């Protein structure tokens, strides 16, 4: 009986501890660290990307009612290329598919913008990487699309 009581007590403590963290087992990685890793480990033809502000984020992406804990976006240093990084952290993982759909919409829009203008950039968009890890989601448009997913994943190891 005492063992059972102690077990219950331990369970309660565990529940309290787990309840305090939003998603047990998920590393809390700053979005800026993820972006920095993507920028340093991937090649960007147009030079270092430029971090856009909230106004520009709302201009470029349609997240609607998506619950975001935070997001960061970087565009090509000039408008010459389609290179881009968007990293976001969802409030709830259940919004993952909506987030991915919003990012895919951005890719499609960019594809249409570039295909009659700088067709050479379209292959980057056709191979755009939309990756996720827990509540983190990223859109990466670059030359090294085959490497981008791995670099993103390495941020969590």
């Amino acid at each position: 009986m005492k063992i059972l009581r102690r077990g219950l007590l331990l369970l309660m403590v565990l529940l309290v501890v787990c309840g305090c963290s939003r998603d047990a087992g998920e590393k809390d990685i700053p979005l800026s660290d993820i972006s920095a890793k993507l920028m340093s480990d991937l090649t960007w033809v147009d030079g270092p990307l430029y971090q856009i502000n909230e106004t520009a984020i709302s201009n470029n992406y349609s997240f609607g009612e998506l619950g975001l804990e935070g997001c960061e976006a970087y565009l090509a240093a000039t408008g010459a290329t389609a290179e881009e990084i968007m990293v976001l952290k969802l409030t709830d993982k259940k919004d993952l598919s909506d987030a991915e759909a919003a990012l895919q919409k951005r890719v499609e829009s960019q594809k249409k913008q570039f295909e009659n203008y700088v067709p050479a950039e379209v292959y980057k968009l056709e191979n755009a990487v939309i990756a996720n890890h827990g509540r983190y989601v990223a859109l990466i448009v670059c030359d090294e699309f085959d490497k981008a997913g791995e670099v993103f994943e390495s941020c969590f190891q």
Partner: protein
Amino acid sequence: MSSPQRRKGSRSQKNPPVRRHNYADIRPKKKKTSLAVPILILFVLALVISLIAAAAWQKLQDSASSSNTSSGIPTPPPSAVRTGDGPASPSSIPSMKAGYSQSSPESAPDGEGDAQSGESSQSGDSSGESSSQSTPGGNAVSTVTFGAAVPPSAKVSESYFDDALFIGDSITTGITGYGILNNATVLASKGVNPSSLLNNKVELPDGSKENLLDLAKEENPKKIYIHIGANGVAFIGKETFISLYAQSIQRLKEDHPDAIIYVQSIFPVTKAKADAEPLYSNDKIDAYNLAIMEMTKEQEVYYLNVAEVLKGPDGALPNEVSPADGMHFGPATYRVWMDYLLSHVVDAEDYPQESSGVESTPSGSSSESQEPSSSSASG
């Protein structure tokens, strides 16, 4: 593409030999305690830790505040702290209206080039006569002549763009793409040229396809800034180019009889671009700009020689401003462009003026630095 979730590794643990104790036999009998006690202890512990942390935080804030006061640096109110580059909260990210967006002045981006702020050269064409003009809508304006570049004016605040509409090509899309302004309406699409502006529906950032002049008609701007031509100069003959451009302006005048219409010069390209693709030579661009300026006289709209502030000493866009394609540039140069517009207005007296110019002076490294040129696109 989705990445698999990383699972926490499960450690294998050796099961210890089962040891059965009859605690009742080896421990003195204790009074039975309820479960509430350890929980209460946990809460009290958490409360104590929180209070200690709060006290430390307060102390830290007090000391920071006193040091600022003693050094004469006022502590800005929380509302003055710029958070533009921080993570966006869901509530702060409205969805974009189809095809265009509202933008507002943002402070100059850091880490960008130290592009020249404001103009330091003369306006493109000084041969034009100066005389009093009125806008098509009858607004009073300073001494400006149609068919000559708008001369420098007092620099107005960025609220001047509150009722402005920008129409243009890929370069103009950067106004919203980089978040340069958030109080103006921008109708732009990559690849727009005088022909497609007039005749075609073009792809918009929201995925829809519309004619920009049709969309413009739905707006009620007091000023219209138009910038096209970089895409047409290579493959549209000058006369056709001007004819198409003039037709678009006529349409804008009909749809917006009260608006001040500013026609901006085609921007220069880098020497590298001009050398690689002679169809885009800056001499050719200058010739087209001269023709555009003459056209503005016939159309009675205002010509802005923005090219003059973007040119380096060699009359070209500096290579470091546009290393990738010799035509597009980054946010620091957008600030130079916007500064030029704000200091070349025809109705400055009707608007609040910028006191010091500090607000929109680009800052940062010199990666985009460029020398002002006294050469004019028209000449």
